[in-house]
């Protein structure tokens, strides 16, 4: 019944030219700076943060959605989207790493369990987002299979992608390596933490969501 209602509602929306709701997903491996970028976007356009970021991996373990963010470009054009911050996608999670970082045994096990669920949720949400920003740490090797799997899945679903090379304020950052790894995509270098090149990032968003 619900599906029938959604179909009828979708039909009338398309008939009267209602704009498609953009769900902009932030995807990437852990510690790339997804939540820092989400906070930057929310602070710039809503005046508030979205979530907590940390140097410790798997700080974001649940999908977070901030609805109806409106951004403007220099031409006065507006872009409205729901921002979906996802947990970092990983192929392994070892609770002992969290113990080494100073957590108690029970805290570490809880965090690891939540992190595994977070990865599963992030993968399942691939079916619900319609534009994706892949956030990569520009100081790290981009040729990881997780990055390739994420981009491959977006390509298979025909989802528009913008690749962000984050942390360009750091000395070891190398945007060219990321560009070489993903030559078929636009790559924009930013520092989400310090706001470096963020205007160019917003302009690219307009291009990708066209």
């Amino acid at each position, binding site marked *: 019944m619900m599906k029938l209602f959604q179909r009828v509602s979708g039909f009338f929306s398309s008939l009267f030219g209602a704009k498609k709701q953009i769900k902009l997903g932030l995807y990437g491996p852990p510690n790339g700076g997804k939540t820092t970028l989400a906070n930057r976007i929310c602070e710039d356009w809503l005046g508030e943060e979205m979530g907590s970021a940390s140097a410790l991996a798997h700080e974001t373990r649940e999908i977070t959605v901030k609805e109806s963010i409106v951004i403007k470009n220099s031409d006065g054009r507006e872009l409205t989207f729901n921002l979906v911050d996802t947990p970092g996608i*990983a*192929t392994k*999670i*070892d609770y002992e790493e969290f113990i080494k970082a100073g957590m108690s045994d029970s805290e570490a096990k809880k965090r690891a369990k939540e992190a*595994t669920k977070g990865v*599963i949720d992030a*993968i399942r949400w691939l079916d619900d987002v319609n534009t994706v920003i892949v956030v990569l740490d520009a100081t790290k*090797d981009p040729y990881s299979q*997780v990055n390739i799997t994420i981009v491959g899945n977006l390509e*298979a679903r025909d989802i528009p992608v913008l690749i962000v090379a984050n942390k360009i304020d750091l000395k070891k950052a190398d945007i060219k390596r990321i560009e070489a790894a993903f030559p078929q995509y636009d790559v924009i270098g930013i520092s989400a933490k310090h706001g470096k090149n963020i205007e160019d990032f917003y302009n690219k968003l307009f291009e990708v969501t066209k």
Partner: protein
Amino acid sequence: MSLTLQFVPYSQIAPMSGSERVDYLLGIAKKEKIVLLEGRLSPDQEAALIEKTMQSINKRFKGIELSVVYPDADSKELFTKIKHHVVNFLLGNRSGFTIIGPASVVKEIKQDPDKIQLLTQ
């Protein structure tokens, strides 16, 4: 420390469904063996492999290291692209190979376009 590599020819997984392939390959990795698969999984099967890996994590099994070596994947030449599409359509993704190593055995797989480095624990 000894390492066990299990070679899986593509013909072995070809008759399996996507879900069966993932279960089969993950099952080998959970036995602390390194899987060397001829060819590659599709992107959605790779995502399913990560998802099932996460569901399997416990005190003993901490996940996997995954790497795919796929020659000419980024080729911009039209002929090469068409050739790959036709071969993949007819025979499945048989080109290249996939390494799936249990995280307890394989610490990291470093991947460059042309070489692969397996670092053990």
